[in-house]
C-alpha cells in the first residue's frame, strides 16, 4: 500500500536523501508564495460576508494548497546509490545442512528454499552476475544447486557468510540472499557479525520451515553434578523443548542398561520448555555414564534429539567432615549415629566434654585433631566440610576463625553452623571473623534466642525441589508427618544471596531454619536447631527419615567441595577448552609446572600440552578442536622437572548427537542478527518484486547516484484533492460557497 501511494517502499525513503530538480532562481518559489498569500488575503478581506475566524480558516486552507503546489513545482526527488546493471554480483546461498531435510507438513524445507532462490536467479540475471553457494559446515561456491545433500551436521551461518562476503568483495558483491531455516550452530558470532557490519554488503534472508513443530520433543539439557557420593541422591535437571501439551515419558539409564529413573513429565502447553528434576542414586564407583531418553512421539521425525548423555564421577575416595562441638548433646549423638553407616564419609568430631577436655571420635588415626581444632590450612583443608555446634566463637583464636573463613572462600569447603545455647548469635559468631561467610546476619551477641520448645519444620518451595531434602521416595517429600523438633534459634536476617531451604513455624510466625549462600569457592549454611534428634526418638526404629536427612545434607556438603587437583573440559567454539587446576596443600596455586592432558575416547588418545592461564594462577589451559562423540576421559598430569607432582582425572560426554539434529524448529533469531549487522533484512514472505527492489537499493558493489522523482506519486494527487475537498465541505456547511 505504501509503495503504491508513494511509488517506492518505505526503506527507499529511509535510505535516500530528498533533493529538488527545480532549475530556476532560488527566489522564484518563495516570492510566488508571498505574492499568493497577499492576494488571497486581499480577496478574503474584500468578501465581508465571512466572520473573522472563518476568514482565517479559509485563508489557511488556501495557503496550504498554494504551498503544496509550489513544493511540487520544485520537483522533489529521492536521491540514492544503486548498483550499476551488469557490473555487480549477487550471491545466492542455499542452506545445505541436515536440518533443511526436515519435512514440514509435507513441504520439504530444502526444496522450498531452492525454488525461491532459483526463481530469484531468473529475475536478477539480467541485472546482476549470479553466484551460487551451498552453506553447511562451510560456504562452498557451486554452479548449480544440484549438488545439495542436506546431511551436514553443522550450519555456522554467521561465520560462513562472513567468510563468503570477505572472499567475494573483489567481485563487486552487491548483496547476498540466503535461504535457510535459520538454525545457527556456531557458538560465538561476535567477530563474524562485526565482519559483516564492516563489509557493508546487505544480506537478505529468505526463511523457510516452521517455528513450531508440535510433533517433536527435544531434550535441550540435562544438568548433573560432576561428582556424587556412592549411594547418595542427587538432582538431574532436565529441560524439554516442546510445542504441545500432554505427557512425555523420560527414562534415565546408567551405563546403557541399568534403569535409574522413569518418570512422566507433564508438558506445559503454555510454554515452549518444561523443566523436570529427577532424583538419581548411583551405587557403583567410577565414571558413570547416564543416558537421558525421551520416548518419541508417534509422528516424530527427528528422534536423535530425544537423547542426551552425561557423565557423573562417583569417586572411591572418602569425603571428610570435621564436627566441632562445644558440649555433649543429643544432636551430636544422633547425627553421628545417622552418618555411621555411611562408609564414604569420615566423620571426625571434636567434642568439648569438660571445661578443659576434648573427646575425639571417628578419627582416621590417633594424631588427627590431637592438638585440638586445626591451626593451619594444611590440616584444616583436608576436610570437605566443617560443622560448628554449640560452641562460642571465642573458643577459636581469631587466626582460627580467619582460617575457617578461608576454608570456605579459598578451599571451597562447606560450613554448617548448628544452633545451640552457645551457637550462632548466642556464641558471638555474628561478630567473629567468620561472619562475612555466613548467609545471615546473626542476632547480636548477648541476645539469647535459643528456645527449648517444640516446633514444626517444613521445606520451602526451593527446599522442596532439592533431592537433598527429600525424605521419602514416594510422591510426598516426607516432611508432613514429622514430629516437631526439640528446639530452635533465630538465624537472624538473610543476606542478599541467601536462600532458605527449611523454615520453622514458631509462636510468632514462620522463620527461616536452614539457610545457605555461596561464599567464594565454597558455601555456608546456618541451621537454627539442635533438636532434629527428636525425629529419631519419636519415630519408629524402621523410620529412617532422621538418618536420611543428615546423610543427604552432609553428602551435599562434602560433594560440593572441590579437590586440590582437577581437570575439566568446557565447550568452546570451536572445540573444547581443557582446564586443569593444581593447588598445594594450603590450596595455593602451584606455578611453574609442565602440564599436559590425555584425552581418551573411542577415536583413540589425544595428547595436549597445557599452558599456564594468565588470568588464573594454578590453572593450566589448552584447546582442542572438535568435541568428539561419546564418553571421553581426561587425565591431566603436572610435572615439576621430571617428577610427576599431581594428577587429575575427569570424564565428559561428547556430542553424541550434533547440535544440528537437536534443533528442528526454524528460527529467525540468527538471521535477524546477520541482517541487522549487514544492513539487509529478513524477508519471510516477501514476493520476488519486493526482493528485487531491495536488491536494487543496495549501495554495495559498483553503484551510481540515482534520482527518482516523487511529485507524480498517487499520494500527491490525493493530497491535493483532500485539501480542496476539505475547504469545499467547510464552506458549504457555512453556506458560503
Amino acid at each position: 500500500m505504501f509503495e503504491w501511494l508513494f511509488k517506492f517502499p518505505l526503506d527507499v525513503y529511509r535510505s535516500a536523501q530528498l533533493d529538488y530538480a527545480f532549475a530556476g532562481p532560488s527566489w522564484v518559489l518563495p516570492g510566488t508564495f508571498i505574492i499568493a498569500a497577499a492576494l488571497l488575503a486581499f480577496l478574503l478581506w474584500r468578501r465581508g460576508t465571512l466572520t473573522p475566524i472563518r476568514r482565517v480558516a479559509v485563508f489557511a486552507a488556501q495557503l496550504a494548497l498554494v504551498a503544496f503546489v509550489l513544493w511540487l513545482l520544485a520537483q522533489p526527488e529521492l536521491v540514492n546509490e544503486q548498483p550499476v546493471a551488469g557490473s555487480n554480483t549477487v550471491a545466492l546461498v542455499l542452506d545445505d545442512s541436515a536440518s533443511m531435510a526436515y519435512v514440514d507438513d509435507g513441504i520439504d524445507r530444502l526444496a522450498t528454499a531452492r525454488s525461491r532462490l532459483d526463481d530469484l536467479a531468473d529475475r536478477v540475471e539480467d541485472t546482476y552476475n549470479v553466484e551460487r553457494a551451498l552453506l553447511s559446515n562451510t560456504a562452498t561456491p557451486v554452479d548449480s544447486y544440484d549438488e545439495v545433500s542436506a546431511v551436514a551436521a553443522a550450519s555456522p551461518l554467521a561465520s560462513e557468510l562472513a567468510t563468503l562476503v570477505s572472499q567475494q568483495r573483489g567481485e563487486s558483491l552487491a548483496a547476498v540472499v540466503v535461504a535457510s531455516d535459520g538454525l545457527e550452530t556456531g557458538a560465538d558470532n561476535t567477530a563474524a557479525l562485526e565482519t559483516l557490519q564492516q563489509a557493508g554488503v546487505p544480506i537478505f534472508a529468505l526463511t523457510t520451515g516452521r517455528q513450531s513443530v508440535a510433533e517433536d520433543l527435544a531434550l535441550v539439557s540435562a544438568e548433573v553434578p560432576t561428582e556424587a557420593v556412592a549411594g547418595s541422591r542427587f538432582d538431574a535437571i532436565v529441560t524439554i523443548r516442546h510445542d504441545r501439551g500432554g505427557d512425555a515419558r523420560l527414562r534415565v539409564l546408567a551405563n546403557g542398561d541399568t534403569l535409574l529413573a522413569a518418570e512422566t513429565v507433564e508438558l506445559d502447553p503454555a510454554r515452549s520448555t518444561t523443566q523436570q528434576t529427577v532424583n538419581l542414586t548411583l551405587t557403583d564407583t567410577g565414571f558413570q555414564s547416564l543416558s537421558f531418553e525421551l520416548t518419541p512421539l508417534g509422528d516424530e521425525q527427528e528422534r536423535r534429539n530425544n537423547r542426551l548423555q552425561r557423565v557423573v564421577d562417583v569417586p572411591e575416595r572418602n569425603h571428610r567432615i570435621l564436627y566441632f562441638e562445644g558440649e555433649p548433646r543429643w544432636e551430636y549423638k544422633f547425627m553421628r549415629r545417622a552418618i555411621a553407616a555411611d562408609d564414604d564419609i569420615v566423620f571426625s568430631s571434636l567434642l568439648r566434654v569438660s571445661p578443659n577436655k576434648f573427646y575425639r571420635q571417628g578419627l582416621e588415626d590417633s594424631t588427627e585433631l590431637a592438638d585440638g581444632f586445626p591451626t593451619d590450612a594444611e590440616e584444616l583443608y583436608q576436610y570437605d566440610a566443617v560443622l560448628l555446634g554449640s560452641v562460642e566463637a571465642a573458643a577459636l583464636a581469631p587466626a582460627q576463625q580467619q582460617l575457617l573463613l578461608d576454608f570456605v572462600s579459598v578451599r571451597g569447603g562447606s560450613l554448617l553452623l548448628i544452633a545451640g545455647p552457645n551457637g550462632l548469635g548466642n556464641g558471638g559468631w555474628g561478630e567473629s571473623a567468620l561472619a562475612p561467610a555466613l548467609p545471615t546476619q546473626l542476632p547480636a551477641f548477648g541476645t539469647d534466642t535459643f528456645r527449648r520448645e517444640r516446633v514444626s519444620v517444613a521445606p520451602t518451595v526451593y527446599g522442596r525441589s532439592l533431592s537433598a531434602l527429600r525424605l521419602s521416595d514416594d510422591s510426598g517429600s516426607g516432611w508432613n508427618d514429622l514430629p516437631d523438633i526439640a528446639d530452635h534459634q533465630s538465624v537472624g536476617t538473610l543476606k542478599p544471596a541467601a536462600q532458605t531451604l527449611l523454615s520453622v513455624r514458631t509462636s510468632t510466625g514462620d522463620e527461616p531454619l536452614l539457610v545457605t549462600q555461596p561464599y567464594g569457592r565454597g558455601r555456608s549454611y546456618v541451621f537454627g536447631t539442635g533438636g532434629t534428634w527428636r525425629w529419631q526418638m519419636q519415630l519408629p526404629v524402621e523410620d529412617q527419615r532422621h538418618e536420611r536427612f543428615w546423610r543427604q545434607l552432609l553428602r551435599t556438603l562434602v560433594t560440593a567441595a572441590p579437590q586440590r587437583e582437577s581437570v575439566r573440559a568446557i565447550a568452546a567454539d570451536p572445540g573444547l577448552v581443557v582446564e586443569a587446576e593444581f593447588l598445594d596443600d594450603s590450596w595455593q596455586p602451584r606455578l611453574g609446572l609442565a602440564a599436559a592432558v590425555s584425552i581418551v575416547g573411542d577415536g583413540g588418545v589425544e595428547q595436549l600440552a597445557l599452558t599456564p592461564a594468565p588470568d588464573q594462577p594454578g590453572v593450566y589451559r589448552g584447546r582442542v578442536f572438535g568435541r568428539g562423540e561419546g564418553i571421553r576421559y581426561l587425565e591431566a598430569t603436572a610435572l615439576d622437572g621430571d617428577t610427576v607432582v599431581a594428577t587429575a582425572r575427569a570424564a565428559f560426554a561428547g556430542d553424541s548427537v550434533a547440535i544440528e539434529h537437536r534443533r528442528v524448529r526454524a528460527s529467525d533469531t540468527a538471521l535477524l542478527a546477520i541482517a541487522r549487522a549487514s544492513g539487509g533484512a529478513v524477508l519471510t514472505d516477501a514476493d520476488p518484486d519486493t526482493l528485487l527492489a531491495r536488491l536494487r537499493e543496495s549501495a554495495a558493489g559498483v553503484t551510481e547516484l540515482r534520482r527518482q522523482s516523487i511529485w507524480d506519486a498517487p499520494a500527491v494527487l490525493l493530497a491535493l484533492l483532500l485539501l480542496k475537498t476539505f475547504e469545499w465541505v467547510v464552506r458549504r456547511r457555512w453556506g458560503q460557497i
Partner: protein
Amino acid sequence: MLQRAAAALVLGAAMSLPVFAAGMPPAEFQFARLAYPVDMNSQAYRRGARDMWQTDWPDAEHHLIRGIKRLTRVNTADEGEILTVMDDALFDYPWLYAVEVGYWSLNQVEADRLREYLERGGFLVVDDFHGTFEWASFMESMLRVFPDRPVREIPESDESLHVLYDLDQRVQIPSIMLLRTGRTWERDGRTPHWRGIYDDDGRLMVAINFNMDIGDAWEHADTPSYPENMTALAYRFGISYIIYAMTH
C-alpha cells in the same frame, strides 16, 4: 496421656511423690528416673516393696546433677524427672536411670515399649540390685525386653569406661549399709559386675551395675562417714554413662 495420668495418679497417691507434667526437658540433659511397676503378686510386693524405684530419691540425682554441672560441659537441668515406661514424654528423655531393678516387673507391652526406646537410641542405667534372686528377677523382665540379646560383661577396653575418665578400678561400690554392717556386698552378691546389653553396632544401650549401689554413693555424697572415694568413683561412673549416652 491417659496412661501417664493414670500412672501419675496411682504413683502420686501411693507415694506422695510429684510426677511432673510432660514437656520438653528444660535443659539438654535431665536426669530421668524410671518409675517401674512391681508385680503385685510377688512376695516382694507383699513385703511392702511397692515403691522401690524411688530408692535414694531425690538426694541421689540432686547430688549427681551438681557434679555433672561442675565436672562437665553438659547443659543439665537442676532437678530430675520421673517417668514411667508408658509415659508419652519417655522419648524426649534419651537417658534413664532405674534403681532396685531386682523388683521391677514389666509386662510385655511395657517391655516392648522399653525395647523400642532403647533401639531408637535411648540409654538405660540400672543399679542397686544384688545377688542371685534379684538378678533372676531383673532378667525375667529384661528377657521380655530383649529375648535374644545377651547380657555381657563390659570389657575394660569399652569406650563407655574411657569416654571421660579411665575407669579401670573395678571396686565394689557399697550401699550405706556398709556403715552398719561393714560389708560392701548385699545378699550373695559378693562380686561386682559391670554388665551391659549392646545393640547391633556394638554400642552399649543398657548399663547394668550389678552387686553394687552407685545410687547410694551419690545420695550419701554429703554423709561424712560414707567413703568419699566411693562417692567420687560413683560420680565418675554416672557421668561416664551420661557422656557415653550423649556421644554414641
